[in-house]
């Protein structure tokens, strides 16, 4: 019933949410957008994000992003820019939609049948979800590092060479060697692994595996790197190494990192975005978020007073 109602209302809406998976049910949240009073009363901001969502030199810019899994709404009206050369930390309690948001940026949600995504997602002004966008090229430009290290059960060399190989980035063995060794070098792994290139990627320690996954990602030379809790299964020493690496990489790449560690967010990021129950509550400079947050929910979360 509500779907039909939403379709009837659709022509009156000012924006045109893009329909990706399902043609019938996507406009409902858009309809809600005009009625901020319907939102949870506890949310003081009435759904408007506090702080500055824009970046000076945006690589990715997202507007009016809504995501549904079947009947549940995972993200409501998210607007956010990710700027060139910046590290943005996405924080928030579990299930708040951080990962969903991140996975929208390189269309990893395409592999989930029940996900329906609306809104505009631009990468350097090009629409990520446009029909003519090639997912393969998109994912080469927007790389991803996952929560659990997931090296392929191949040799270390082959793990890094995988991406360049499927995208045809190297024409000769020597070129491939350059890419592989260069990526491992940038991931700070080359010295450790130089003599073990034929060992299996799965035989490394957890921290090395995760850095191998980062090397694998940067081997295809992406413009953006998305990291979904890359340190959650690592010990403090391996975490420190990854954080140094993120620092290093941020000179060349735009990086979005999800983390549950406030300290990590404070250490590595320039901006921080706080998600709560599918809404983007606040975005601002990391210093400001952690010292003088503009929203009560953000303050509760960063001070650990949550719940």
């Amino acid at each position, binding site marked *: 019933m509500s779907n039909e109602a939403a379709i009837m209302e659709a022509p009156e809406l000012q924006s045109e949410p893009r329909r990706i998976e399902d043609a019938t049910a996507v406009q409902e949240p858009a309809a809600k957008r005009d009625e901020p009073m319907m939102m949870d009363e506890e949310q003081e901001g009435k759904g408007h994000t506090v702080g500055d969502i824009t970046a000076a030199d945006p690589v990715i810019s997202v507007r009016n992003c809504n995501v549904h899994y079947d009947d549940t709404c995972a993200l409501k009206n998210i607007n956010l820019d990710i700027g060139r050369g910046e590290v943005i930390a996405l924080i928030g309690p579990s299930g708040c939609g951080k990962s969903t948001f991140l996975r929208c940026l390189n269309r*990893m949600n395409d592999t989930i049948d029940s996900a329906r995504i609306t809104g505009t997602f631009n990468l350097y002004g090009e629409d990520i979800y446009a029909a003519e966008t090639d997912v393969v090229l998109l*994912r080469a430009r927007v*790389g*991803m590092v*996952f929560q659990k290290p*997931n090296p*392929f059960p191949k040799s270390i060399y082959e793990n890094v060479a*995988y991406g360049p190989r*499927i995208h045809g980035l190297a024409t000769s063995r020597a070129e491939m060697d350059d890419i592989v060794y260069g990526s491992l070098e940038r991931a700070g792994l080359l010295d450790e692994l130089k003599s073990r290139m034929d060992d299996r990627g799965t035989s490394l320690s957890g921290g090395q595996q995760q850095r191998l996954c980062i090397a694998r*990602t940067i081997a295809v030379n992406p413009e953006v790197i998305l990291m979904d809790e890359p340190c959650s299964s690592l010990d403090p020493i391996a975490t420190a190494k990854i954080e140094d690496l993120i620092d290093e990489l941020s000179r060349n790449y735009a990086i979005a990192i999800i983390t549950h560690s406030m300290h990590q967010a404070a250490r590595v990021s320039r901006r921080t975005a706080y998600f709560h129950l599918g809404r983007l509550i606040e975005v601002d400079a990391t210093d400001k978020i952690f010292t003088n947050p503009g929203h009560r929910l953000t303050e509760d979360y960063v001070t650990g007073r949550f719940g």
Partner: protein
Amino acid sequence: MQISTLILLLAAVLIAVFWLGRDKAIRCAGGIGSVRKLHSLPGYYGYYTAIWCGIPGLILIGLWFMAGDVLILQQITSQLPEHLRQLPGPELSLVVNDIKNMAAGQFINPARIGELSDAAEQYTNLQDASRWILAWSMLAVVCLGFGWAWSRLSPGFRARNRVERVMKTGLILASTLAVFTSVGILFSVVIEAFRFFQKVPVADFLFGLNWSPQTAIRPDQVGSSGSFGAIPLLFGTLLISGIAMLVAVPLGLMIAIYLSEYASRKVRSWVKPLVEVLAGIPTVVYGYFAALTVAPLLRNFGESLGWSVASESALGAGLVMGVMIIPFVSSLSDDVIHAVPQSLRDGSYGLGATRSETVKRVVLPAALPGIVSAVLLAVSRAIGETMIVVMAAGLAANLTINPLEAVTTVTVQIVTLLVGDQEFDSTKTLAAFALGLVLFVVTLILNVIALRVVRRYREQYE
């Protein structure tokens, strides 16, 4: 008192005893409210009591089944008339059978009716008596067990640990039963095969190129002495299995890849069971499908090309067998491919790989050991398959690699060797056991390899 009544009674007693034991435990603890004072849950005390009654009772029944009848028959034969007692073993056992039949009132041997009617009557009486003895001794045993268990029940008694130990022993017994069965089968096959190798040298059997097991049935009959070279049979088996695998492996793998990587959940839930139906079709049905449908098709097709195709060809049997084996490969591979962690696929997609690149370069290599073992299991199934080959591939033991000719396999020859009137110790019959042993060894080796591969695969992920 019938044995079945006795067993039912025992079951009823056990249930009663369980509640008695449980009840006593609760009372010892001081009511249902203070059950926590007990070491174990009250039910365990009940089980403990029931075990002490039930297991001795069951052992007694088992002993009675094994020894009771033997003892009675000994008693009876010792009282038979002198001329019957002096009969040689086999004839004596015929007499004993007559007594049994008479006692059961089924068939009465008219020649012996006078001599044996006393014995038959005595047999009935003794059987009756033995059942009563069993019943009373069971009562005694159950009471003793109950008394022992009852005397030990106290709040601090560790009933749970003891019951668990009995459970564990039961499980171990169940698994040893399976092991002993296969050891027993192997043992019997090995002994018969050994007798065969006393008549035909091992080397002749394993490396001989000629198989024609026709031997004279009677001493006065004119007939060949037979030649038992297993090579044509092994070769035929390999040829047909090979054709079957050529069909089953690519098709099965493609089905598995489609089901696990491409199909939506709905399609998968329909297609997978449908494919598995193939495994449920009786092999006889496949057999006449091969003989009556596929073989004529192949022959006509071959003739139109100017080839001569035997009406019972290895190709026809192999093709149909391949279809039969498809679900083995597809189902097992599908499970294995499904078990490849989603994180690996995510990693590959995240780097911009397409679905087919992900399948070819990440999923299949990761699943390869499991797929190999699935294929090996399918091979051992193909080698052991009989019915299709009997009906579609013929009996001619040709040593050929031409799939259009008739060949025969180890299993088919075992069937033909054992069908027909032959003495059980003739070379021809014994050859079947030697072939069985060969088959057993080959499939065993394949299974061991498959298990090894699976184990290595398991070590790789968690």
